[in-house]
């Protein structure tokens, strides 16, 4: 009961905190200018625009795309492997020499930027055999192997139209847009939640209420936990409201375009993908701030971490344990990454729970070691 009341108290605080309103404005602007700009929703595709990507079907196309994939591996000297989280496997010098030899035989004297099907001198099966053998050599589950291999190209207008009709009819379209929304909201969560969370525990110190709270008989886990959950609910309420807005738009459009929508998809993806990012975005700065006793330092650390992550993450496809934000900015191939994303999200829920315990422990240590008068600047 006390725990619940403290949570309510924290929520009340957030909803009359100026920083929280700034946070809402920034998130809404981000949503409006990033997501809404791209979101076609249930409107039919425009013939003048390029929509998404699609798996190539002809062997000729696949040979060209396979050549580019092998060329990319040669240049980056690594191959992506899912185990089940995506990670880069470094290629040995011997393997690199083999790849180089293979692609030279595959399309001699060819520029990768201008390669066409007529430049390819081997058949499709030979290329697949080579990719499979390299995949086995690397222990399987690489992007070259049968499980994760894809030959992707840009979608034509006609293909977009077919895909649109299919998604519109079977209700998949809300899931597609829910993933895209979760992608943008995840970025907002990663970047901006820190401005609230880094002050959450140190607020007591800044308002000189800390000693009074330390000397009360509240359990440390109750106090820290209530602050965490209160802020989590406040932040998630903003994201879920955006999810509600999107759901409402889709429900209206569903009538207009005679489409089927799933009204739970937005909430599902916001909770599954964005919530762990919010959890991590709250508790890590709380911990840093309480250790360093400095909120600004926590903001700088977390903000830089997020920027570094964003600049080093592809729009889709990288879900190893270092990615605390899920980027999935595309319409297709979700099933291929679903398991990796699931493990990533579970990892961040787990790590956040552990960090709550660690923050509580540090808070308890600080609670029992308040410095005396002259050393406290009095």
């Amino acid at each position, binding site marked *: 009961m*006390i725990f619940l009341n403290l949570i309510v108290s924290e929520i009340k605080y957030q909803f009359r905190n100026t920083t929280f309103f700034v946070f809402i404005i920034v998130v809404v602007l981000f949503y409006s200018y990033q997501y809404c700009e791209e979101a076609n929703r249930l409107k039919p595709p425009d013939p003048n625009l390029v929509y998404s990507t699609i798996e190539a079907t002809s062997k000729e196309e696949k040979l060209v795309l396979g050549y580019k994939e092998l060329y990319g591996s040669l240049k980056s000297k690594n191959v992506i492997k899912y185990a089940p989280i995506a990670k880069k496997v470094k290629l040995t010098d011997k393997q690199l020499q083999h790849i180089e030899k293979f692609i030279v035989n595959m399309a001699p004297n060819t520029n990768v930027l201008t390669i066409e099907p007529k430049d390819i001198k081997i058949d499709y099966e030979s290329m697949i055999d080579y990719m499979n053998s390299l995949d086995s050599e690397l222990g399987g589950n690489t992007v070259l192997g049968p499980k994760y291999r894809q030959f992707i190209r840009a979608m034509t207008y006609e293909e977009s139209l077919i895909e649109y009709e299919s998604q519109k009819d079977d209700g998949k379209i809300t899931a597609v847009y829910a993933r895209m929304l979760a992608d943008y909201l995840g970025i907002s969560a990663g970047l901006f939640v820190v401005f609230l969370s880094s002050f959450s525990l140190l607020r007591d110190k800044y308002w*000189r209420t800390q000693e009074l709270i330390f*000397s009360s*008989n509240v359990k440390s886990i109750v106090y820290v936990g209530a602050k965490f959950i209160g802020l989590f609910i406040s932040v998630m309420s903003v994201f879920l409201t955006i999810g509600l807005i999107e759901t409402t738009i889709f429900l209206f459009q569903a009538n207009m375009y005679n489409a089927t929508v799933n009204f739970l998809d937005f909430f599902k993806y916001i909770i599954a993908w964005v919530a762990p990012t919010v959890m991590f975005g709250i508790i890590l700065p709380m911990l840093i701030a309480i250790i360093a006793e400095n909120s600004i330092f926590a903001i700088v650390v977390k903000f830089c971490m997020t920027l570094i992550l964003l600049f080093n993450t592809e729009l889709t496809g990288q879900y190893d344990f270092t990615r605390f934000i899920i980027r999935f900015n595309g319409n297709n191939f979700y099933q291929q990454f679903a398991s990796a994303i699931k493990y990533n999200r579970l990892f961040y829920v787990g790590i956040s729970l552990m960090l709550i315990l660690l923050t509580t422990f540090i808070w308890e240590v600080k609670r029992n*070691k308040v410095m*005396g*008068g002259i050393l406290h600047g009095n």
Partner: protein
Amino acid sequence: MEIRLNQVGKKYKNIVALNEIDLTIPQGMFGILGPNGAGKTTLMKILMALLPADTGEITINGIPISQRTKIRECVSYLPQEFSFYPYMSVLEAMDYMALLVGIKSVVKRKEIINELLVKVNLIKHKRKKFKTLSGGMKRRLGIAIALLKDPKVLIVDEPTAGLDPDERVRFRTLLSEFAKDRIVVLSTHIVGDIEHTCKNIAIIDQGNIIFCGERQHLMDEALGKVRVVEIKCEELSDIQSKYYVISINEANSGYSVKLITDKKIGEEVKPNMEDAYLVKMLSHTSDARSNFQELLC
């Protein structure tokens, strides 16, 4: 009901904040007097289990200080720099702290809060935001918050700092009322705070307890050491260089100077509490003069 300290010591690197002190604090108002930096706040924080002592033993009503949870159940603390979230009203602040001290029932919380706000004369201001309260109101709110858990021991650190004389008197009276069936430990560097409220006092200086006992004993010890001399204007600097001057008043032909000395000069006067404190401090340390000046200011 008592607090016992046995050989309690605390160091911050090379600074000795408390030098293995022994102290027994009985029921009622107990004043801890000392200049700034004497170790009072450190002592208060140790008593509140907010800071561990390096050496020694402390028990509060028989409970060892190491049992922090139990200590926090029966001891309340009003810190030196009491403040609260400025956006909260008096009522919200009380309710929030009532939650933290573990009062689960809403009805009981309301009942206790109203009762305490009446006691500290803040009931009319219960909707006011903390940031709009005067210094005295804030202190009274602090007391009300400290009394939420109905503590056996109330520790108050420099309670009247920054208050005007009216508020100061009202605050002391309030503390005296609460001390009837409790231990109230009042730490201050202002002699007036304990002069009329604390029967028992301790004087702390540079981490040492230099006096512990009844207030009257301190006054008795100072008897014969406080004198008033009438001097001419040109003699003032000479007197100031030879004696510890407590006060200087203008007189007809020059000045009337109150000073501390063992010499039979001028006229002996009955020392007040502040005089007695200064005599004690002077006898304890040779470099106490700077502290006296601070106190006189």
